[in-house]
Every structure is written in structure tokens, then in C-alpha cells.
């Protein structure tokens, strides 16, 4: 009796049958869904990263007594970058499990997954998802604030000439009162020919208008302003 005949007899005896096609289709679909999910999450992570980078002011490193490289190293959102790398890896792993995934080189899959994540992430960022995710994590995830550098860390240093808060009293573009975000202290802000950056124009303050100020601290409640920027 040949091996084929023995096997055939065993198949009959044990009543072995081919597994149904839907099982394999389901398995394949699950892999593709996991791959797509990994890409979507990667896109969301990219959108937060873009948001965190774009939310920083790249020209204030001098005020912080740092050079541009030191400043960049501080504001890099390592937390999100690590998550991005993990999900990029997950996307690759899932793609490898697809029927023909093995035919593509790792670097090509990672590149395509990275570029797709970037395109998705930019789209999500455009629709404000990055900001929303960051706010959600700030509110709900313990220690998140410590892990990610937000602009508020730089703008709560009046001694270094950086202050942020909400306008509470308006006397004109060169004289107004703000309540700072750090302690809620009120500051009399004065200046001459103050530069107001777009898109925020000088004018009567609406309720809760938030701004950033570059200038110098005069005393405990007075700040001389040179430039005003919108908080967002």
C-alpha cells in the first residue's frame, strides 16, 4: 500500500473533509481588517503628532535660553512617536499575514504603511482630530501631561518674558488685563506699538479670549508686551 493509499484510507476512516471556504475567507478578512485598523490608528497618532508640533512656537527658543536643537528635542512627542512605531509594526505584521504579503519587502511595506499613515494623519489633523485626541488624553489619561510637552510649559514663564492667559479687561491694544493660565493671577499688560499676530486682531475682547504674550516682566503684576499671539 502506498502512502497516498494509506492517507486516503485514513481520510475516509476518520471522515476528514476540507474545511469550508468561508473559514478561510473570514480568516483573511480579519487580517485585512486588523491591517486597516492598524493603519487608521497610525493615522490618528500621526495627526496628534502633527498637532503637537504645529501647536508649538518654533521661534521662542532664544527666550528659553536654548538653541534650536535643544528646543526640538524637548518638544518631540516621544510618547506618540513610540505608539506610531508600534502601530506601524502591527500594520506590517498584519500585512505579512495576508495571502501575498510575503511577496513584498519589509522596507516597502513599512514605507507604504508610513506614507499612508502620514496621508491619513494629515487629513485627520485637518479636521481637528489631533487636537481632540490630545485634549481627551490630557483630561482622561493620568501622567499624560508629564509624558508630552505642551506649549503651556513654555508660556508660563513671565521671568523669561513669556506669558499666556485670558483677557479680562480691555483698554486698548496697548493696555489690557489678563488672567494667566498658570495660577490665575491678574496681570496689567502695557506696551507701545504692540504687534498683534494674525489671525488675532486688536479690538474689544470677546469673552475668554486666550492669548500668548512676548515681552518682559516689570513686577509681580505688570508685564510689558512687545508681541501678542493667539493661543490656538
Amino acid at each position: 500500500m502506498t502512502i497516498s493509499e494509506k492517507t486516503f484510507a485514513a481520510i475516509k476512516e476518520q471522515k476528514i473533509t476540507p474545511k469550508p471556504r468561508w473559514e478561510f475567507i473570514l480568516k483573511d478578512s480579519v487580517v485585512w481588517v486588523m491591517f486597516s485598523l492598524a493603519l487608521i490608528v497610525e493615522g490618528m497618532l500621526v495627526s496628534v503628532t502633527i498637532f503637537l508640533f504645529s501647536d508649538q512656537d518654533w521661534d521662542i527658543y532664544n527666550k528659553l535660553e536654548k538653541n534650536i536643537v535643544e528646543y526640538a528635542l524637548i518638544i518631540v512627542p516621544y510618547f506618540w512617536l513610540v505608539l506610531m512605531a508600534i502601530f506601524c509594526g502591527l500594520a506590517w505584521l498584519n500585512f505579512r499575514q495576508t495571502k501575498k504579503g510575503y511577496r513584498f519587502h519589509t522596507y516597502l511595506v513599512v514605507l507604504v504603511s508610513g506614507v499612508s499613515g502620514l496621508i491619513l494623519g494629515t487629513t485627520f489633523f485637518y479636521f481637528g482630530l489631533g487636537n481632540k485626541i490630545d485634549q481627551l488624553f490630557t483630561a482622561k489619561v493620568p501622567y499624560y501631561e508629564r509624558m508630552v510637552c505642551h506649549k503651556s510649559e513654555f508660556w508660563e514663564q513671565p521671568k523669561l518674558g513669556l506669558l499666556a492667559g485670558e483677557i479680562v479687561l480691555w483698554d486698548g491694544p496697548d493696555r489690557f488685563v489678563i488672567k494667566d493660565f498658570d495660577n490665575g493671577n491678574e496681570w496689567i499688560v502695557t506696551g507701545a506699538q504692540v504687534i498683534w499676530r494674525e489671525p488675532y486682531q486688536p479690538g474689544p475682547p470677546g469673552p475668554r479670549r486666550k492669548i500668548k504674550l512676548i515681552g518682559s516682566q516689570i513686577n509681580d503684576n505688570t508685564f510689558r508686551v512687545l508681541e501678542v499671539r493667539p493661543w490656538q
Partner: protein
Amino acid sequence: MPPISPKDLLQKNDEDLVKLTLENQELYLYLMRRYEPKLLRYILRISNVSEAEAEDVLQDVFIKAFQHLNEFDPDLKFSSWIYRITRNQVISNYRKIKARPQTVELIEEAGTGVEKLLSDLDIEEALNNHELALEVEKVLTAMDQKYKEVLVLKYLEDKSYQEISDILKKPLGTVATLLNRAKQAFKKQATVQGVNFALVEA
């Protein structure tokens, strides 16, 4: 469906036979018969198990392939698909029994595969067929598994790059690189083993 004569079945290609087997499972015997000698030889070449163990492995391969027939992708060659299952089964069997190398005749006679391997390596055949087969076998047995299996597939199983890529589940470029390294490793191993090949000077 009208009955198909055994003669017609023998003329069908593998992929058609798979479709027919899914309709009539009795026909699986024809597929198994086609691959029995090839796969048994392949198992022996890549695994270092005894012939009896190789037969058990082959039986498992055939059963697994039968259970997964609906998973077969007609974009692949059936032979690539079943060689892949065989390779996976050999690896799984190895993990299970932790097989120790045994003396198994990998290559009975130096056929065109061995000749092509040596010619690709610029090695002159200074030996008679049987001696040559023994020497090649000696070198292959001592080689790293990943190099050995790619040489076996290319030269002894006569598979194309695409087929090797589908069997090993590696990209084509990686297969080409692996094969180049395997050839270098073969030459190096031949020198280490003191195998009596006459290397052609470049």
C-alpha cells in the same frame, strides 16, 4: 457531472484537479499520487529524518493539504502551495521530535540538478556520478538549514525563483540574495569539509 476517465484525470493539471477534488473527494488520490515521490524526496532532503518518519510527515502533509484545499489560491502553482505545506510540516515535526541528524541518502545519483549546481559554482566535475552525489550530499548536510533548503529547492527540486519565493514565503529579492549566499556558503563548506571538487579558477 459526467464521470471523468482515469486517462482524462491524468491529463488534467493540478489546479483543475483541485477544483474537481472539491466536487468529488475521491479524486484526491490522483493528486497525492502525483506528489508522493517528489514530496517524500523533498522531506528527506531538507529534514534529516528517517524514511519511515518522512512517510509519517508526508501523510500529515496530505491530510493537512486536503483539509485546506479551499484555501488554495489558484494564483499560485499547486506545487508551490503543497511544497510550502510540506516545509511547514517538516519544521513543525522537527520542533516536535527535535530530530537529530541521521545518515540519509539525500541524493541517490548526481543528476542534472547536481550538475547545474556545480556548474553555477564554477566547479568541474572531476568525480563519477555516485561519488559526486555523495560529496554534494556531504556538503549540503553540513550546511546551515536556510542555505541548504534554498539550494535543494533551486537545484534538486528544480524550482524557479517565483516558486521558491512562494514556498519559503519570502520576497523574490530575498530569495536571490539567499541563493547567492547559499552558493558562497556551499563553496566555503566544501573547502572546510575537504571535499574533492576541482574548483575552476576565475
